[in-house]
């Protein structure tokens, strides 16, 4: 926007707005997102295994960086876990689902539900069952 030819009142309003806007936002970013949104968008634009692996790697790198100063965003462990599940690595997936609910108790119900699915799916396919 043009800042020329402003009257004093307008200039004051702008200054006031900037001050108020910083109050609107309040805090700086709490979390280290590590390119999550862009990476997810890249995956949605081209949903193949290569993009999935790339998205998964970005998530892990982001988590590792964020863990240093404890700024892992909500959902991030679970997002990574789910990509591992899709890449047929259920063991890593369950480790990260557990990390998610330990950090974020709100996720416990969903994480436990997904892990139950994992543990019930594996015996069904391998156990002799009705034989």
């Amino acid at each position, binding site marked *: 926007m043009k800042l020329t030819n402003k009257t004093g009142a*307008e200039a004051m309003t702008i200054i006031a707005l900037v001050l108020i*806007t910083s109050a*609107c936002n309040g805090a700086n970013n709490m979390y280290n997102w590590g390119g999550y*949104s862009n990476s997810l968008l890249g995956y*949605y634009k081209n949903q193949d295994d290569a993009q999935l692996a790339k998205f998964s790697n970005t998530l892990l790198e982001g988590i590792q960086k964020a863990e240093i100063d404890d700024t892992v965003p909500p*959902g991030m462990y679970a997002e990574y876990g789910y990509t591992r599940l899709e890449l047929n690595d259920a063991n890593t997936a369950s480790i990260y689902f557990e990390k*998610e609910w330990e950090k974020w108790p709100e996720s416990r*119900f969903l994480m436990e539900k997904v892990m139950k699915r994992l543990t019930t799916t594996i015996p069904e396919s391998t156990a002799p069952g009705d034989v």
Partner: protein
Amino acid sequence: MSKIKLAILIASAAILSACATPPASKDFTTYIAADPHSILIVPVINHSAEVEAADLFLTTLPVPLSEKGYYVFPTNMVKKVMEEDGLGDPMLVHSADTTRLAELFGADSVLYVEILEWTNRYNVLAAGVEVHFLYTIKDGRDGKLLWQDEQQLYVDKSQGGSGNLLADLIVTAVVAATDSLSSDYTYVANSANAAALYAPGQGIPAGPYSALYQGDKNDFPANGSGMISDATARATAYQEDPNEGMADAAEETTEAEETSDEVEEENGS
């Protein structure tokens, strides 16, 4: 000072001070009482012809909601789990019972977003995009409407700003430090999200992980006005009148009923 100049000055002051003195604050009584700690973002309904807009929009929602202090369910995982469970169609999800949907994920609240318009406009001097979004948050436990906001923006892509000064300033603060802006379209969505979620009196109060949690009641007051929404459009996820609790609206209804009674009496006599 000429009258025109004065009018422009008043108009610009009104626009610029939108943050300080919003037209009318929404009523956060229901929202504060519900006190949601977690938000489930469901797939976006796209009424526009821009095929990629829904997925793009979805990717821009987790950051501002989490930074506002809420537990936001893993967006991609939720999308995939829904697809597995036969809930892949956004229309179906938005029309489904909110409490049953929230139960599936253990969510306190559900955010529904609809893209009502997403149209590219070109002229000699500029290229821009005109957008219209509708945001609705419902209580996952009883299905009550907690909050609703409508954003209509024209984003001038050649200038790189939304034209909404408030949105531009907030979006810079919220997003710039975290994810670089991948495209003009991401900027459009981020601008709208920032204006919808962060504007005092209009957005949503800080969630439990924010330092501002329960300390922003001046900005998001329980004023008892009954105005939960500023939207002109009705959401797929909530088709009743979002502001039915408003005192003025109730009076108008009564008056209308009285008038119609009188008409009936006159017709009868």
